[in-house]
């Protein structure tokens, strides 16, 4: 395995016919580990990485039923921002944002994190009131945020339609300059490689089919590649969280839904920032490759099929075209769906369970990608100390019993 990527290693490989070592070693599972992470997506790999890097636990297995970078981590629309309304959510996502800002150097892997700014548009007077309130809340929490007018948006994004004749005219927006995008599959590869360098076993093609619990304590997992024992297990399986929970005899307050996205053919640079609209429901950015990346909404019914209804993408395409009439002749290249686990309050669960040694990090719903490093970081500390990281405390499963929900749903300018 290549020790470190550098100028020198690039030059050397370039001169020797691109002779690169495998980035993530293929390993056989051992029979016992200190910690098992179920799910090799961004959040699971980040958890393993921070456990190894900061918590002194390196005897870790990450078990993944598919391959690294083959799930939701590489299916999202790659948007990163931290302009949430509530203190609890804002602190967690801002923690993540600060980790993003140093992530490529930290992982020694270029995740192409690009702080190109994020606009959250408002189309009604109430949208604008909510935006002003959220921007003020962000500033009080130390998160960069501005209210910008339709005229200023037009100056920054000349191709946007700010006409008052639109069905839902753009009245203004919030703007987070530090927001942006990152290359999502690179994030998975980067965390996987960095974790593997610290001694973590990344076990691909290994599906968990059972969880062993004895006298209220977790003992290990049964997988398609044999039984693996561990006293502590972190479940980070996104859309399949309820399926994993059921193996341990638990229920979760989440429902799985398909979330769709689509990309156009690649074209020359036309959109330099990220534009999101909650009201008409569409969000768009242009990848470094040149394709327009467009996110749609979820289907209302529960589903584990990685596809959704065509009317959902039709709705988002209509919203995008109203904002950007110039895209009306753009040809779409691919469309897909991923399964997201949605909580009643649209906030995640980062929590121990009533089974000793079994932890869940789930319920990120439609907006988990932006939280990848922060989520892994606080979850690693939660597992290592068997005590919730202070930033994770409000996200305990107990909140559904006590009623202390985090009212972020619809309040954060979220189309995720």
């Amino acid at each position, binding site marked *: 395995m290549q020790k470190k990527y550098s100028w020198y290693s690039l030059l050397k490989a370039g001169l020797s016919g691109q002779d690169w070592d495998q980035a993530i070693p293929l390993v056989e599972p051992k029979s016992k580990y200190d910690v098992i992470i179920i799910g090799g997506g961004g959040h699971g790999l980040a958890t393993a990485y921070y456990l190894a890097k900061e918590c002194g636990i390196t005897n870790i297995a990450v078990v993944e039923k598919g391959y690294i970078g083959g799930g939701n981590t590489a299916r999202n629309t790659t948007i990163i921002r931290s302009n949430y309304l509530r203190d609890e959510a804002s602190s967690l996502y801002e923690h993540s944002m600060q980790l993003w800002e140093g992530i490529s150097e930290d992982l020694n892997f270029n995740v192409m994190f690009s702080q190109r700014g994020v606009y959250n548009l408002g189309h009604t007077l109430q949208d604008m009131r909510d935006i002003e309130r959220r921007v003020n809340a962000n500033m009080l929490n130390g998160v960069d945020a501005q209210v910008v007018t339709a005229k200023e948006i037009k100056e920054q994004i000349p191709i946007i339609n700010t006409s008052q004749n639109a069905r839902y005219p753009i009245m203004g927006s919030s703007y987070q300059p530090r927001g942006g995008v990152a290359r999502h599959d690179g994030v998975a590869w980067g965390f996987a490689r960095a974790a593997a360098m610290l001694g973590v076993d990344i076990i691909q093609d290994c599906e968990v089919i059972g969880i062993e619990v004895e006298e209220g304590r977790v003992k290990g997992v049964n997988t398609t590649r044999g039984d693996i024992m561990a006293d502590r297990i972190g479940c980070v399986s996104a859309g*399949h969280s*309820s*399926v994993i929970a059921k193996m341990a005899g638990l*229920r*979760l*307050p*989440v*429902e*799985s839904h398909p979330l769709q996205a689509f990309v156009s053919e690649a074209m020359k640079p036309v959109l330099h920032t990220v534009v999101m609209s909650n009201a008409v429901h569409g969000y768009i950015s242009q990848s470094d490759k040149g394709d327009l990346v467009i996110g749609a909404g979820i*289907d*209302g*019914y*529960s*589903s*584990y*099929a990685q596809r959704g*209804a*065509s*009317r959902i993408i039709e709705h988002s395409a209509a919203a995008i075209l109203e904002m950007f009439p110039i895209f009306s002749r753009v040809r779409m290249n691919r469309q897909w769906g991923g399964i997201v*686990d949605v909580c*009643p309050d649209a906030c995640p669960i980062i929590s121990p369970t009533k089974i000793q040694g079994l932890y869940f990090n789930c319920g990120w719903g439609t907006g988990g990608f932006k939280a990848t490093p922060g989520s892994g970081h606080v979850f690693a500390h939660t597992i290592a100390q068997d005590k919730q990281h202070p930033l994770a405390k409000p996200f305990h499963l107990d909140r*559904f*019993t*006590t009623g202390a929900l985090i009212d972020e749903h619809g309040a954060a300018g979220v189309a995720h």
Partner: protein
Amino acid sequence: MFLIHCPYCNEEREQEEFSPAGEAFIARPEAPEDISDEAWADYVFYRTNHKGDHWEQWVHSNGCRKYFMVERSTITHEILKVAAFGADISE
């Protein structure tokens, strides 16, 4: 996208006419004031979220506006059974 047979209209119509209305067979506790917070949380928030054949509720929102039950595979979206409330669904 799929077609749903409305048991009241007795017609097969496009899914777009219907709205999903969550998991079926969630009964409101008889005496909410007498049960624990955990039991209430389970009723309000916790769901089976089953992967496989799953009973759920739909409403014919752009039709007769009545609620009914559907057994649908959450893996393939195939609809296996449709029933009005109170109907015998054993077979």
